[in-house]
């Protein structure tokens, strides 16, 4: 997979474009997750109606 293709991969939970997986930082991660979704998954934050601003 090219570097551009890796960079364009979205968060596996919210589809937001991210630079890389917040958890494992592996460029080949099959289930990349953004910081916000990681916080929600761990119970640190609650899902917001407007996930990324608004």
């Amino acid at each position, binding site marked *: 997979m090219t570097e551009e293709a890796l960079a364009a991969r979205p968060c596996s939970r919210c589809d937001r474009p991210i630079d890389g997986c917040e958890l494992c930082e*592996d460029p080949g991660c099959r289930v990349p997750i953004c910081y916000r979704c990681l916080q929600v998954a*761990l119970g640190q934050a609650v899902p917001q109606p407007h996930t990324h601003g608004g």
Partner: protein
Amino acid sequence: MYHYAAGKLDWLAAGLATEGSNALRPRAGDVARRDVPTAALGERLGEVAERVRAAGWDACVVVNPQRVVFGLLRAKELAADPGLRVEEAMRPGPSTFRPYVSIVELARLMTDHGLESSPVTTSDGRLVGLLRRRDATRVAEELGGEGGNGGEGGGGG
């Protein structure tokens, strides 16, 4: 200037006593191994690797004198050039988790992302222990689906 006032989650993150039914569920801080070897930034990798192996470990947490986590040395890093300084070989700024994170969710995430181990730290970054995936998955399986977040928060850093 912002003065941070410690709250309920910081109490939990410090590993202090809790009560209630939710307190009975094992969490990251309960399962993390507190006897994990540590190393300082300026040490030679060869000496650290020898010490870690002698202690029966394949990972080591890099901390400062206040035990604030700076990096992680997993098996791959420990096998690097023994002449390197620890700070040259370590994985800097590893993902860390607070001690109150649900062990079930954490085991799932560590499995999905192929993480063999992750440091557990307090809110101010001080090492609590190293959570190994095999320990997390074993406890999660014993719980058999119990032990979710249960209303208390988790935390990654």
